[in-house]
């Protein structure tokens, strides 16, 4: 699979780039709703490693970094590499599907205490490590002249461990992709 992706990635575009801003690299900035409503943000980078002849379809490699705040529950930092497909109608309507596998570090959102020798003391907040994996699907609209694609994605992840088990988490992200 890796060899296949690498081979495709090294192949040049099937046709010269048009005048439109349609570069193979892009950055993305989005609102990230962890469990849909817990607010956060993501900064992403994408590389269209493989594109079809008319650039309607692409295999996209990328990653997102960001975080969220679940008030009085947790503060999470994320690093989420992804691989996905993007397809575009000639009108500009775009669809996508991605698989994510990454890391989440969860910090406590308020003061932390421990009791040592019967005395309450402030304790460090080193947080809890975890793994996230799952999928997102999304839609967007590509504006070729400016190279912008507003998009919305919904996703479902497995988070491990929560306590010591796997839990399902949902996500909603709304943002914009800028071709560079």
């Amino acid at each position, binding site marked *: 699979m890796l060899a296949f992706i690498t081979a495709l990635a090294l192949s040049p575009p099937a046709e010269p780039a048009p005048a439109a801003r349609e570069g193979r690299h892009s950055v993305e900035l989005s609102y990230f709703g962890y469990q849909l409503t817990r607010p956060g943000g993501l900064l992403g980078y994408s590389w269209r490693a493989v594109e079809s002849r008319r650039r309607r379809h692409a295999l996209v490699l990328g990653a997102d970094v960001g975080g969220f705040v679940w008030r*009085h529950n947790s503060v999470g930092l994320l690093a989420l590499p992804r691989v996905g497909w993007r397809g575009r109608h000639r009108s500009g309507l775009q669809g996508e599907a991605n698989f994510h596998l990454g890391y989440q570090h969860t910090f406590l959102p308020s003061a932390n205490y421990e009791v040592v020798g019967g005395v309450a003391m402030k304790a460090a907040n080193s947080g809890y490590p975890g793994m996230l994996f799952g999928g997102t699907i999304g839609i967007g609209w590509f504006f070729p002249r400016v190279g912008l694609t507003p998009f919305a994605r919904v996703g479902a992840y497995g988070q491990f461990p*929560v306590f010591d088990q796997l839990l399902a988490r949902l996500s909603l992200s709304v943002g914009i992709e800028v071709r560079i």
Partner: protein
Amino acid sequence: MMTRALLALALFASCSPDFQDGDEHFYITDKGASMPVWVTGNWRSNKIIVHVHGGPGTTNGIYYQKDSYQRLADDYGIAFYEQRGSGSAHGLRREHLTVEQFVADLDDLLTVLAARYPEAEFVLMGHSWGGHLGYAYLLDPVRQARVKGWIEQDGAHDSSCRTWQLGVDWVLAHAAEVLAGAPSRKTRRFWEGAQAFYRDVWECDVATNENNMNAPYEGSTVHLGHSLYVRAAGGYDVDPERVLDTAETLELLFESQFDLVAVTKHAPLPVEGYYGVDLTPRFGAITLPTLILWGRHDRITPVVTAQPALDALGTPADRKRLVIFEDSGHNPWAEEEDKFYEEVSRFLVEVWP
């Protein structure tokens, strides 16, 4: 424009309806678990109810939305803490899921509360499994001296197989009654499944208290299997909608600090030293003012265990009482909110004149 919209959405989403101005929030971390503590209500009165939720492994999220608790919070502080492996707590090591560790956690909580609120006095209030944990905590006289009173709600202080068998018998009688009628194929299969569960899976010896309630069963534990059949037979609540309705569930899922998804995955936690243990014979060591509240129709922690608890307490007769809620099952705080508030308030005025 879009940025503004995103900011507005983020601001809206970050407001949790459970958390009021003046509330405080912190964690206690020990042995790989971080347990959140939410101190709400009138804690500046220096009279704080320390709330011990049920489960093991559920959450305080199911209580705070009710008028009964909100009215208590107008008068007193309430310290809701999520036990290890429960609700919105973080971290877990299975080897620490013992009654002794939960007792130690509760003691740590009182230590931290005493440090943060040095003028405050505390009353312990436990529901269901929290009733067992509360008593286990109070059996030690040093720990008992840290609180001014004790309120038990439908507690599992008697977790012997003899008591669990009452629920089993009740479910099986219900199953027999349903199957004697003309149930649909789906209903028949369900209640025949219950009969098979108690025949082939359930083990709780009323003579020895040997049991398998912590054993894995269909992705959870045998205890959960029993709980689900008791619930299906109507043994938890007279009217489940009074306990947690759709709007409250949505608030819990999408707006509150609580992690309902985690609760549904983890409860009941397999706590060692809980199942098969009846604490009642040791209650003579407890001399605190005590209020025991019980729903008449509770089949998971049967009402017949309430009077023996009251009788066994070392508390003088005029400082302990039992109140039965005739229109409630396991959750009188939700099914008869006014009466719950009035009884708890009356007791607390006696404790804190």
